[in-house]
C-alpha cells in the first residue's frame, strides 16, 4: 500500500475543523528531532490550548489570593473563580449540585479519597470490592490498601479476548451478597475499551452495591452525564482534558459524601476546632483541607469551556474516526498485533499494539527519532499486560487535534522499525 493522503480513506465528512483547533495548541507546531511533532500520547496527558494557558496566566497576574478567607477584593475574585469553576464542572458532568464536586489533585487522589473515607467507614471483614483486570493501578492499589486494613476481599471481572469486560460471571459474584462497592474504569487507558457503565450501575444497585467509575480516560474523551450513567462516584483529572496537571475532581452523590468522614484534616475543612475535637465544614469543603489548587481549578474551568465549545460528542466521533483509520492502516502491517476491541465504536482514541520481535521501547525510540510521540510500557495496567500475555505494548492515543496524516507518519515510522529490526 502506498501512503494515501488523509482524504483517501478517512470518512468524507470531517467532524472537527482540526486545522483551526491546532492553532489553539502552540506546543503542537514545533519540530522534534528535525520532524514536525506528532503527539500521539494523549492518554498519558493532553496538550493545553491557549485559552487554558491564558486563564492560568490571568489568574496569577491579576487575581491571585487565598480563597474563602480574605476580606479583600483579590480574595473575592479568587473565591469567585474557584467556586465558579466548581459550578461549571458540575454542569459539565450533569451533577445535581456543585456541592457534589470535590476538587482533588487528580483521579488518583479522588479514588484514594473514596477508598479511605467511604471504605474506611463502611467496609467490614469479609466484604468484597469488585474490580476488573482492566484497571489502572490507581484504581487497584487504593482498594488493596483499604482491603488489607479492613479484612475485605478483592474480586475481579476478567477480560475477553478482545479486551472487553466479561460480565458473564457478574450475577454469580453479586449473588454472594458480599460486594459492597465496585470500582471500574469508564474507558481503558491501555486498550481504549469503553465499558457499559450504565448496565454495571444498574446491576450493582440491584445487589445494593455502589459503583465508582474511574473517569480519567472517560471525561476527556466521552460525553459524561453522571445522572444518565447512574453511578455513585466519578473521578477524573484535568490534565487529560486540556487542563493543567495537579487538579482533578471527585463527583459523588450528595447523600454519600454527606455521610463520609473527612479524608484529610487541616484548614478550610473545619467548622469549629476545640482542643480535642473539631466539627467539619459543609460539603464540599469538608474534603478540601488546606489551600487548594485555585489556579488549577480556574484553568480547568477554561478547559471545560473549550471542550464544551468543540463538543464532547464530536470529539469522540473524531477520535473514533482516527481509531478506525489507525486500525485499518496498522492492520495491513505484517508482524504487528493489535489489542482491544476490533470495532472502533466500542473504543475511545487508544490503539495498543505490539511488533513481533521488537520491544515496545525500541518502537517508541525509533518513532521519537521521527517526531512521533507514543507511549511504550505497561501503561500502569500490569493485569492487562498479563491477560494479553505481553510484558508491554506500544500505544498511540488520539485527541481532538490529531490528524489522519499523523497516523500515516506512525505507519511510516513502523516501516523504519522494520528496516532496523527486521531479520535479513
Amino acid at each position, binding site marked *: 500500500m502506498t501512503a494515501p493522503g488523509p482524504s483517501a480513506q478517512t470518512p468524507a465528512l470531517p467532524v472537527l475543523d482540526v486545522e483551526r483547533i491546532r492553532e489553539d495548541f502552540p506546543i503542537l507546531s514545533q519540530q522534534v528531532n528535525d520532524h514536525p511533532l506528532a503527539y500521539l500520547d494523549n492518554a498519558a496527558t493532553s496538550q493545553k490550548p491557549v485559552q487554558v494557558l491564558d486563564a492560568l496566566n490571568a489568574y496569577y497576574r491579576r487575581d491571585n489570593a487565598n480563597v474563602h478567607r480574605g476580606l479583600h477584593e483579590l480574595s473575592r475574585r479568587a473565591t469567585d473563580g474557584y467556586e465558579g469553576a466548581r459550578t461549571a464542572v458540575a454542569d459539565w458532568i450533569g451533577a445535581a449540585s456543585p456541592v457534589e464536586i470535590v476538587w482533588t489533585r487528580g483521579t488518583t487522589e479522588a479514588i484514594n479519597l473514596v477508598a479511605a473515607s467511604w471504605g474506611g467507614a463502611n467496609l467490614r471483614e469479609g466484604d468484597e470490592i469488585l474490580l476488573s483486570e482492566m484497571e489502572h493501578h490507581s484504581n487497584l492499589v487504593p482498594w488493596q490498601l483499604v482491603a488489607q486494613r479492613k479484612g475485605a476481599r478483592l474480586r475481579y471481572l476478567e477480560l475477553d479476548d478482545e479486551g472487553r469486560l466479561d460480565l458473564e460471571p457478574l450475577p454469580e459474584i453479586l449473588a454472594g451478597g458480599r460486594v459492597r462497592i465496585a470500582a471500574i474504569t469508564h474507558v481503558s487507558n491501555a486498550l481504549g475499551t469503553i465499558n457499559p457503565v450504565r448496565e454495571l450501575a444498574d446491576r450493582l444497585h440491584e445487589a445494593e452495591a455502589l459503583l465508582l467509575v474511574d473517569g480519567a480516560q472517560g471525561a476527556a474523551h466521552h460525553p459524561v452525564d453522571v445522572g444518565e450513567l447512574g453511578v455513585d462516584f466519578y473521578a477524573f483529572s484535568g490534565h487529560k482534558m486540556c487542563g493543567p496537571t495537579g487538579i482533578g475532581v471527585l463527583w459523588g452523590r450528595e447523600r454519600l459524601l454527606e455521610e463520609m468522614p473527612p479524608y484529610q484534616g487541616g484548614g478550610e475543612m473545619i467548622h469549629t476546632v476545640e482542643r480535642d475535637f473539631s466539627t467539619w465544614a459543609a460539603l464540599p469543603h469538608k474534603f478540601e483541607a488546606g489551600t487548594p489548587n485555585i489556579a488549577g481549578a480556574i484553568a480547568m474551568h477554561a478547559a471545560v469551556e473549550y471542550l464544551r465549545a468543540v463538543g464532547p460528542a464530536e470529539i469522540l466521533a473524531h477520535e473514533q474516526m482516527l481509531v478506525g483509520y489507525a486500525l485499518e492502516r496498522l492492520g495491513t502491517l505484517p508482524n504487528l498485533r493489535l489489542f482491544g476491541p476490533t470495532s472502533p465504536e466500542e473504543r475511545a482514541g487508544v490503539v495498543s499494539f505490539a511488533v513481533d520481535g521488537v520491544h515496545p*521501547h525500541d518502537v517508541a525510540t525509533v518513532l521519537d527519532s521521527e517526531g512521533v510521540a507514543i507511549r511504550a510500557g505497561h501503561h500502569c495496567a500490569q493485569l492487562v*499486560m498479563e491477560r494479553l500475555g505481553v*510484558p*508491554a505494548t506500544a500505544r498511540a492515543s488520539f485527541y481532538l487535534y490529531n490528524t489522519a496524516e499523523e497516523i500515516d507518519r506512525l505507519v511510516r515510522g513502523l516501516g523504519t522499525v522494520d528496516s532496523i529490526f527486521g531479520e535479513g
Partner: protein
Amino acid sequence: MQDPTSQLNSLYQQVILDHYRHPRNKERLENGTVEVHMRNPACGDEIKLQLRIEDEIIVDLGFTGEGCSISQASASMMTTLLKGRHVDEALSLTGRFTSMMHGDEAAARDKELKDLRALEGVSKFPIRIKCALLGFDALQEAVKRTREDEA
C-alpha cells in the same frame, strides 16, 4: 550534533541487534552462588542474573529476562566480558561502562569494554541509559550480597 537518523543508527548497531537476537549466556545458571532479580518498575524491563563466584572469581554467569534490545544486549555483552574475571575487575569495568553511558569519551575509547563499546550511542538517549545499566546494576548487587554473606 549528529542528526537523528545517524544517532538512531549508532544506537542500533548490528552488534547490538546480534546480541539482542542471539543473546549469549541467556539461560539460568543452575549452580550459581548468587542470584539477583532487577526490575525497572518504570518500563518493566527485567533481568535475573546468576553468578558462580569462587574465591572472588566469577567462574560462570547466566541470565534470564525480558526487555528492550538495549537492556538485553547489554546484559548479554556483560556476561561474555566478565566470565573468568576477578570481582574487583568486574566492578572496575562496570564503573568504566557507567562512565561511558554518562558521556565520558575516554571511557568510550577503552578497548577493554569490547562489544559494550557499541552501546556508546545510548548515551545520546538519556531515557535509555537505565536500560543499558540494568544488567550491571544486577551485577553490583550480586557482588554486594556475596561480600556481605562472606563478611
